[in-house]
């Protein structure tokens, strides 16, 4: 196992053993067999010189740069970010030094040089309103750019909930007409890495998988890698036993909250959210939302913004009595109307009554 990456890492003070340990842990996180860890380490370590590294184009659309922040500011930048040493990141507005025409040239050069082979990463949603005028780069709408760049891509990674499902811009009433990558591109393999932002390890893991095996990992029906999104937050949550015992924090500062009881009643969306936060955790395994005392927002699920309020328990509907008053009035009106008709009918029958005589018993 040798190559430019190891040398680069060594220069940054990362030893070979540290790298191997990282790969083993990454494989474990992705539910790959232990042998895959070594394979990944070897594949990445053997990454060729800069000119031959796989080309990656990163297109930012309607986004907040949170996804980029997530990976570049992860706890151990050298390790999580080492993936960038394996790839040739030919276009990434936030990170690249070039700007303006230079940047555009770099993009088109990379597209031309690696046609059909480059990996396209997208973060942010694509606005369709006003012919896409809500978000333009170099005079082109995001829609145009996406279609153009996607054409030559080997695969597309939709990074973050916006690219994967439309995210915050897509939230009701969706003023920009934002849609996801998969709403537009239908003929390329797309992997969604939702989350607001996604867990850095997940990003690294997916890229490592692609680089090592040349394929995308197994996906669920929402296009997410099963290894990370296979189970709900609730099922892997360390507070789950409290849910089963019916012990719930009622407010953020009551004794239940101090005792670390279940946050279901405070609006935790853990039961309907598929993500790896509970096991992988954040900030290098320091903590994750529930451990910090806040319920899960459900950010890796489609349309989580519109799922009825972050602090409303899942069992609590938004406003079920909204129509109650109207319904009661209409019901009462209908009832009264029917009553009148019925009483009219009854008294008509009564007034039409002919006193029966014996003869009237016969037909």
């Amino acid at each position, binding site marked *: 196992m040798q190559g430019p990456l190891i040398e680069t890492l060594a220069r940054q003070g990362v030893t070979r053993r540290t790298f191997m340990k990282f790969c083993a842990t990454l494989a474990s996180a992705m539910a790959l067999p232990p042998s895959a860890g070594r394979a990944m380490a070897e594949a990445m370590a053997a990454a060729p010189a800069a000119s031959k590294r796989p080309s990656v184009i990163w297109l930012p659309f309607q986004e907040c740069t949170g996804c980029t922040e997530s990976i570049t500011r992860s706890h151990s930048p050298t390790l999580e970010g080492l993936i960038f040493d394996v790839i040739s990141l030919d276009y990434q507005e936030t990170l690249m030094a070039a700007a303006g025409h230079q940047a555009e040239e770099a993009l088109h050069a990379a597209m031309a040089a690696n046609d059909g082979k480059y990996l396209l990463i997208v973060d942010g949603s694509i606005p369709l309103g006003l012919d896409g005028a809500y978000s333009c780069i170099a005079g082109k709408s995001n829609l145009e750019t996406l279609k153009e760049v996607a054409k030559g891509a080997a695969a597309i990674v939709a990074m973050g909930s916006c690219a994967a499902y439309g995210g915050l811009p897509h939230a009701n009433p969706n003023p920009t007409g934002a849609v996801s990558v998969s709403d537009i591109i239908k003929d390329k393999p797309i992997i969604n890495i939702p989350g607001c932002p996604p867990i850095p390890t997940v990003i690294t893991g997916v890229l490592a998988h692609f680089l090592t095996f040349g394929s995308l990992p197994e996906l669920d029906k929402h296009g997410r890698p099963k290894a990370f999104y296979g189970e709900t937050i609730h099922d892997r949550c360390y507070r789950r036993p409290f849910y089963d*015992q019916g012990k719930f924090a009622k407010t953020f500062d009551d004794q239940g909250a101090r005792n670390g009881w279940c946050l279901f009643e405070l609006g935790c969306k853990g039961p309907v959210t598929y993500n790896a936060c509970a096991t992988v955790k954040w900030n290098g395994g320091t903590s994750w939302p529930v451990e910090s005392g806040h319920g899960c927002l459900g950010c890796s699920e*489609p349309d989580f913004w519109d799922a009825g309020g972050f602090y409303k328990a899942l069992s609590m509907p938004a406003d079920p009595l909204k129509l109650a008053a109207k*319904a009661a009035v209409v019901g009462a009106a209908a009832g009264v109307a029917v009553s009148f008709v019925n009483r009219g009918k009854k008294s008509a029958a009564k007034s039409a009554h002919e006193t029966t005589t014996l003869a009237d018993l016969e037909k």
Partner: protein
Amino acid sequence: MNEIQLLTWVRGDGLDYAVGIFLLGVIWRLFEIYSLGRKKDLSASRSVAGASGWHTIFRRSLPPAGMVKKSPVSYIGGYTFHIGLAIVVFLFAPHILLIQSLTGLSWPGLPSQFIDLAAVVTMAAMVVVLADRINKPVKRYLSTFGDWFTWTVTFLPVLTGWMAVQHLLLPYTTMLALHILSVEVLLVVLPFTKLFHAFTLFGSRWYNGTVNGHKGVAV
């Protein structure tokens, strides 16, 4: 529509409509039924302790002497599934939370393991009652589409709720959405099917008790 959208709809608009139709239906039906009125009884009454509409409302919850033996499945199965439903509906923590959000009223719930047991027992009792309806000549003879239909719409919320909690068949989110949806179906059909007995049985018992109480018969 993905499952979160479905869940959002059933918890939002769907439930709004279902509750609306339910309330509308209940009020309308109550008017429709009770506005027909009845004639005043002109015969001299004979009052006896324990004979009145109110007495009958409570007394009819107990089986008359000897009847349990005659139709054990109806009584035991019936009690089991009605009580089971009450436990599952009113003592499961997420349900209490819903009621609290609607009414402000709250009470302690039961551990989920107990609710789980109650749900299973309820479903078992309902299946037994259904089998009885199929097997017993009288019940089969009386049964109409409405009987099978109302059994189904009552059974589904219990089944889907239980499956959601147990993570069976479908992802929790989808199951939860289906659970709420099935409750909505139940709410919508309740006022217009025999399930409306949940409301009218009080009126019926009261009338029966009153008419008989007038004669000094404790029914």
